[in-house]
């Protein structure tokens, strides 16, 4: 319990349309853990991640982060909590008309007042820190480029830097490599993994690729139809489990196609 940073208890999410995307999820994340969340399309992986930083309002249950109840936080508390949680998106979600450096510095906004943030008053040490992060992921030559001039892999590395710039305790990554080719994927996963390890950041990463999940994760959580069906070490994840996890609609189509 001591070094647990996130504790999700009895989390339920029902969308307006009525879809029950999450049914009674329980999950605890310890400091520095690197957890891969796997599961078929529509299982609720994204919903789970987004409920944690309340981009989606959870319907029921509690989410405790560094001893604060996220689901009960008011606006300014939520801001503070979110500033301690980095998020990496599948489609990078950069501000494409701003420079690479600015995008990374956005990670600092949560620590700034409204006015300072609007008028570009980033601290010098924040800027240095951001540049250092970019150098670490091999983007030192792209610092002043506009974000839309980058390749997919480079964009995602900027996304990683933005999350790291927050000095987070936890990084949430929603399919960070789904839009990337295999090579870029490796670069990006390495960047996430190495930085989390070095700085003791916990990481919860949604992945479609089971092999990638097994390669990096210290722990794997498998979600199916809104329920956690497996939670354990990568080595414990059996072939049958994977088979069971992904069987369903796509599978049927696959079979009928053969």
């Amino acid at each position: 319990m001591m070094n647990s940073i996130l504790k999700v208890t009895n989390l339920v999410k029902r969308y307006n349309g009525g879809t029950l995307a999450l049914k009674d999820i329980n999950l605890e994340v310890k400091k520095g853990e690197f957890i891969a969340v796997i599961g078929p399309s529509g299982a609720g992986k994204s919903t789970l991640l987004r409920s944690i930083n309340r981009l989606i309002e959870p319907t029921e249950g509690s989410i405790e982060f560094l001893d604060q109840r996220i689901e009960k936080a008011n606006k300014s508390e939520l801001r503070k909590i979110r500033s301690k949680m980095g998020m990496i998106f599948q489609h990078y979600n950069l501000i494409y008309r701003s420079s690479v450096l600015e995008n990374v510095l956005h990670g600092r906004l949560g620590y700034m007042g409204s006015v300072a943030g609007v008028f570009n008053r980033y601290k010098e040490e924040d800027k240095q820190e951001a540049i250092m992060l970019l150098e670490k992921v091999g983007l030192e030559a792209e610092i002043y480029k506009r974000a839309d001039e980058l390749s997919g892999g480079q964009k995602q590395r900027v996304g990683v830097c933005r999350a790291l710039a927050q000095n987070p305790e936890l990084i949430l990554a929603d399919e960070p490599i789904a839009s990337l080719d295999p090579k870029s994927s490796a670069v990006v996963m390495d960047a996430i993994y190495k930085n989390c390890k070095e700085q003791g950041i916990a990481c919860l990463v949604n992945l479609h690729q089971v092999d990638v999940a097994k390669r990096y994760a210290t722990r794997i959580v498998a979600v199916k139809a809104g329920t956690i069906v497996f939670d354990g070490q990568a080595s414990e994840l059996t072939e049958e489990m994977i088979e069971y996890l992904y069987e369903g609609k796509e599978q049927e189509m696959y079979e009928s196609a053969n």
Partner: protein
Amino acid sequence: MPVPETVLVKEKAFAKKKIPIAHKQTRRQQQYFFITAGILFVICFMQIDLSFTQFQAGMARIPSVLEMMMQLSFAELPELASEMVVSLVTAFLSLVLSILFAVVLSFLAARNTTPNKYFGMLLRFLFMIIRAIPATVWVLIAVASIGFGTMAGVLGLIFPTLSYLVKSFSAQIEEVGQETIEALQSVGATWWHIVFRGLIPTLLTSFLAITAFRFEMNVAESVILGMVGAGGIGLLIQGYISFYDFSSLSLGIIMVFITMFTLEFMTNQIRRRMSH
């Protein structure tokens, strides 16, 4: 390859009946739209009486009207030029003032950035009413309250301009979608951060494109507004028209046309340069 039995059965069915190919709903909606439009058109067209002889007589008169329009006199050139400047300034200033308000208001009105759902709805409704009030009414009120002169034209134009900008801007804001907003939300940014650091940079180009388009519209509108008493080239043109001073009118038309054409060209250039 082994053909599944179901296919064979279906194949027999196909032989009898034509196979539909379209997406049913899309097709039906398409049909609704065009059939409704067609019926409405026919009904309405029958309501308005158009006489063919009037049309014929009119067509026959075109050459002589053209001939009248062909006259050109440069006597009024200085006056036309200076009033054209008045129209341009009116358009420009009202646009600048409108942008100041529109940027803030559109973020308050857009569905995905409004701080309060009902407030946003109210704002959108308010601007719809403003949009429904013709510019002539605004100018009347403006002249009545601040007196004659260009400033009245500026004030009168602000309202239609503002409502147009708010409508288009907020449509754009709604279109950028959740991604940008979520990215900044997730780092703990405030509403102001999201608007100024996230949305405005992203939307700058499209805002500029809308603004450029509106500037053209404003010039056109300020030309017309002159005709209701707000000064500018419209006042002169209205005069030439009511006294059938064709030679000056033609010069006025050419002047407006050249100005508008240049503007369109320039805004296209700006847009092209901004968009890459």
